[in-house]
């Protein structure tokens, strides 16, 4: 009698558990079904075009000359690697990325340290600092074009007050790149600032307090404690800005159009010119493929680092 009751109970629990397992499995299947349509669309608009791009990079495709389409293997890449203009574009890109990313990190870090406090009015100032970052990039480019066209430039006027004659900013090889670096830095330092500020505010207080009690100066605290703790955030901010700096477009299109000559023509802009201005779509595809591989490799690094940061939390 007792046995059967226990048995019945066990049977009932087992049945319930089985039922629940079935129900959970059914739910799981529904959840997956929820994700399918969006992932399918994402597949069609991202993976398919990427494969297509790889394909066209192996051809001499030129829409302005219909009927000449041919498979030419890796020839585009061979030509590319021997071309001065391509290597020039890489060199422009390296300088552009180096200066914009370093300046953004330095300025962003400096302002984040100044703003790292819970005071009300500092929060208001923080909101003002985000303006450059949220403006449409076209507007940023227009603003800096206005500021750097010599006969209307307030910068040149201010220099003239000091007795210096400002250069013809946007048509001088050095100053044109300088102008673009200034515009890019202005637009994106708020990004590094916000990221580092978030990291600063999540920082544990104990090591800072301990160091102060031990008589460390604020510079020592910054150098030996704050910066090492900020390192992961700095690296992720750096990678994000580095990848985005490779895509700089509206500033160059509007401020200099890559000029004078090819002085401000980074690789991304060069790919655009080849594919859309000169209609050399096959050739442009090969340049784009190289940039794509580069950005994806850096993104993989971000996924690794961010994943590790989450693990430690």
């Amino acid at each position: 009698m007792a046995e059967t009751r226990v048995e019945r109970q066990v049977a009932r629990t087992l049945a319930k558990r089985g039922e629940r397992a079935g129900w959970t499995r059914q739910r799981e299947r529904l959840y997956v079904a929820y994700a399918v349509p969006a992932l399918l669309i994402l597949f069609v608009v991202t993976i398919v075009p990427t494969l297509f791009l790889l394909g066209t990079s192996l051809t001499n495709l030129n829409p302005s000359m219909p009927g000449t389409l041919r498979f030419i293997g890796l020839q585009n890449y061979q030509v590319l690697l021997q071309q001065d203009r391509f290597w020039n574009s890489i060199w422009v890109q390296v300088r552009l990325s180096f200066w914009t990313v370093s300046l953004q990190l330095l300025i962003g870090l400096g302002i984040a340290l100044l703003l790292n406090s819970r005071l009300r009015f500092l929060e208001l100032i923080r909101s003002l600092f985000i303006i450059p970052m949220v403006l449409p990039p076209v507007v940023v480019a227009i603003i800096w074009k206005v500021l750097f066209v010599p006969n209307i430039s307030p910068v040149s006027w201010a220099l003239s007050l000091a007795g210096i004659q400002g250069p013809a900013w946007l048509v001088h090889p050095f100053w044109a790149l300088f102008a673009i670096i200034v515009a890019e830095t202005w637009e994106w330092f708020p990004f590094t600032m916000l990221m580092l500020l978030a990291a600063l505010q999540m920082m544990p207080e104990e090591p800072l307090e301990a160091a102060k009690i031990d008589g460390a100066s604020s510079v020592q605290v910054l150098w030996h404690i704050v910066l090492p703790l900020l390192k992961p955030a700095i690296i992720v901010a750096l990678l994000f800005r580095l990848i985005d700096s490779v895509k700089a477009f509206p500033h160059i299109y509007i401020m200099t159009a890559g000029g004078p000559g090819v002085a401000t023509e980074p690789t991304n802009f060069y790919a655009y010119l080849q594919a859309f201005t000169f209609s050399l779509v096959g050739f442009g595809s090969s340049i784009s493929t190289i940039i794509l591989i580069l950005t994806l490799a850096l993104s993989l690094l971000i996924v690794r680092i961010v994943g590790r940061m989450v693990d430690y939390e």
Partner: protein
Amino acid sequence: MSSRRAVHAGTSAGRRSLQRTLAYLLLLLLTLGTLFPFYWLLQMSLKTGFAMFEMPPRLIFTPSLENYHAVLSREFIASFSNSTVASLSTTVLSLIFGVPAAYGLARTRFRGEGLISFWVLGTRMAPPVAFAIPFFLAYMRLDLLDTIQGLVLVYLTVNLSLVIWMMRAYFEGLPRSLEEAAFIDGASVTQTFLRITLPLSAPGLATTAIFCFLLSWNDFFYALVLTSSKAVTAPVAIVNFMGYMGTEWGKITAGGTLIMLPVVAFSFAVRKYLIRGLTAGAVKG
């Protein structure tokens, strides 16, 4: 002894308050420096003729809306409405497809998760020119060049991944207990999602929607490459004022101000989530 210590404390307190004053002064200068370019565009858009370029600039002047009247031609208004329609459609479509997907992904564990997060981030990071070439070729065949539908489709790349990633993190942060309670009461998965989870997610949905809108609204590259006349968006239309006839600074500054105002307003609404949005949800903060 004690008095010496007091003196010491006094100087270090004095030094600290001096440091603080210097820090605030520096901050003030940096704020003014940061806002100056923005202010310059605004004040130029409100001046006319010679006054726009006058040096030293007049700080006090009677603002004029002449540039705004000039820029609001029929073509520019059409481009503005193209921008609005394209951005709103992209937002709605991305939410309709992306939100359920985000929910599904948040509630299941599976093996390819790392791969999908790389896919989404990679889409955010990929150079637009890499997508623009295949889209351009496909649109030539499909007659989608210079159409708003074409723009919306290409905007889905970045926007759909943005929605999936931001909303997934949001759903993962919601307590599961309410959903469990609904299941025990016999609600189906869809009922639970629509009646319990979605209403709880209103703030996250609003933030994500604003980000979608901003991303499409700010786009310049795709619109430049994939449209030419009737589907031109406002950012491209403004750049067209820098034409062969010389640069029409009045129209450019007024038009630039018009396209940035909605953006600045919306961004203030989501300022706490800017980093999350700009990194497609890969980074908190």
